[in-house]
């Protein structure tokens, strides 16, 4: 009762030398359960409880209820690793950004500004922030799982047959007989420094996945799925909103994407990078290439992604980064605790703060969260291991 509570404020029964009454118990029970009563108040509180069974029940009930609240609210919740990455990247970009100086002061300050910039670059410890896309030390994961079995170096290279079993495709079935969709047509402007032209294969139509005020980073070009599963759509979530996306539709950065059962989603990014997500895959395209870091940054939460890139792509999963420049490869993390990279062409650097390994075409690499990437080992016919990405599948037919 709030009115009663206001009237009681300022009155301290223990200081008045009187015992507490039932109303006091009701008022002080919250502070008592939070351990915030003074010794004198606690004595008065207990003295009343010894005499009043009704208040005993009330406090006992409140104690049980509050313990339940605390248990419900205090469940373990790990922050997404993207937070540290994004913060450090943002701070790194800030550090690299020139300070804005009013135009009328620029001429006067030029020599001083140059000297200050040189000193700042030479003297400050931006060792970490400047390597902005380095994977973050999986400290929490390491501490949380001290007994996680380590991948022994002696266990690699793994038997080839085991590779097939342990990295079996998420979506091998059903097979489809219909022809594959036309490949994405990508035109790139000539010259190494030229900005790649955005030429999506299909003119994107506005869709619910379009978020205002930001440039699209690419287009969902193709979704394959049997008609009876989620109507072939996939889920895009951003800013707390969940939206079904169709093909074609624009994509924005940091949209949380999630493919449904038996649904393969194909995305063409603006520089021609093609990303395919196997069924039951969650991923986020976190970064687009910039002058400072010409790499796409993709976070794979779980599932499997296949990437073919003409430029640099970094796929982060389970505390490790697979970096290709350029290449055709897949990264798989079924539970978010381990990651497997399989390379069809080019070479992929598989690294985190604990170590790195180079995975060449025809090889695979495995790592577990909190551990250094293991050595690469050979795989027979890597494309057959990623057949879901190469197998033609029927296109999704939109609802009428």
């Amino acid at each position, binding site marked *: 009762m709030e009115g009663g509570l206001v009237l009681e404020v300022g009155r301290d029964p223990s200081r008045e030398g009187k015992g507490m009454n039932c109303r006091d118990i009701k008022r002080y029970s919250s502070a008592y359960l939070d351990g915030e009563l003074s010794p004198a108040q606690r004595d008065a509180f207990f003295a009343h409880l010894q005499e009043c069974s009704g208040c005993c029940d009330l406090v006992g009930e409140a104690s049980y209820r509050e313990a339940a609240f605390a248990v419900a609210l205090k469940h373990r919740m790990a922050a997404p690793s993207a937070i540290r990455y994004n913060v450090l990247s943002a701070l790194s970009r800030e550090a690299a950004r020139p300070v804005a100086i009013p135009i009328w002061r620029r001429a006067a300050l030029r020599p001083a500004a140059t000297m200050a910039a040189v000193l700042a670059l030479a003297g400050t410890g931006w060792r970490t922030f400047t390597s902005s896309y380095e994977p973050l030390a999986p400290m*929490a994961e390491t501490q949380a799982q001290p007994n996680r079995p380590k991948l022994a170096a002696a266990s690699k290279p793994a038997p080839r047959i085991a590779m097939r079993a342990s990295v079996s495709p998420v979506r091998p079935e059903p097979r489809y007989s219909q022809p594959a969709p036309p490949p994405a047509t990508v035109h790139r402007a000539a010259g190494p420094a030229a900005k790649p032209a955005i030429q999506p294969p299909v003119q994107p139509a506005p869709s619910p996945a379009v978020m205002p005020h930001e440039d699209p980073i690419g287009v969902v070009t193709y979704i394959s799925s049997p008609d009876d599963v989620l109507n072939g759509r996939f889920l895009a979530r951003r800013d707390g909103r969940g939206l079904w996306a169709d093909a074609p539709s624009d994509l924005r950065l940091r949209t949380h994407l999630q493919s449904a059962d038996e649904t393969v989603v194909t995305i063409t990014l603006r520089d021609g990078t093609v990303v395919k997500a196997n069924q039951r895959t969650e991923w986020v395209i976190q970064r687009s290439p910039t002058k400072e870091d010409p790499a796409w940054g993709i976070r794979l939460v779980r599932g499997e992604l296949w990437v073919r890139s003409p430029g640099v792509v970094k796929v982060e999963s389970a505390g490790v980064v697979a970096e290709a420049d350029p290449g055709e490869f897949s990264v798989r993390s079924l539970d978010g605790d381990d990651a497997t990279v399989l390379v069809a062409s080019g070479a992929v650097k598989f690294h985190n703060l604990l170590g790195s390994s180079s995975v060449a075409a025809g090889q695979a690499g495995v790592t577990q969260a909190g551990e250094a990437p293991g050595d690469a080992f050979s795989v027979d016919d890597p494309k057959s291991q990623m057949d879901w990405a190469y197998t033609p599948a029927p296109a999704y037919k939109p609802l009428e």
Partner: protein
Amino acid sequence: MTPTPDEELVADCLAGNNVAFEELMARYEDSLFRLAYYWTGNRDDAQDLCQDCFIHLYHVLPKYDRQYRFAVWMYKVCTNNCINWLKRHRRRPPAMSLSSLLGEEVEIPDTLPLPEQTLLASEDRKAVMDAVNALPPAYRMPIILKYLEDFSYKEIAQMLNISVKNVEIRLHRAKGMLQKTLRSGIGRAKA
């Protein structure tokens, strides 16, 4: 080995050692994310808010007031950020429901739970979380700081710039509101 005290890490960070800031982030990212999650009610906003908090924290680190324990000072900065976030987003349209977009009921396959569903394993937990989210902001923050982080009334008072008595009253009322909401929810469920 005893971990380096937060205050020492702050001093290292102010001396130009950014690894120290990473260490601070590693220590507090889970709890700050949890705070943001209960404040915003969804993971995407919580991630944004948590990132904003850390970036802001980095900028205001030179103003660290040593009369407070670092965690208390940090939460003071972050709760201010949370309150500002709420002001900025107050006019944002409510989250769209998928069914309203499609005009039909749709279901995500059971095999792939959404992150929120993974996190909220039981219905009870969800009911409590919904009840906390339904609290007015002035009551929500003390509850989060008390139940999630076990801060004392005095520390919560310092963070929110209110008196200890006020914290006590807000918590008392907030608990009453939670109880009422949960009771009516159970009543509805039974009916």
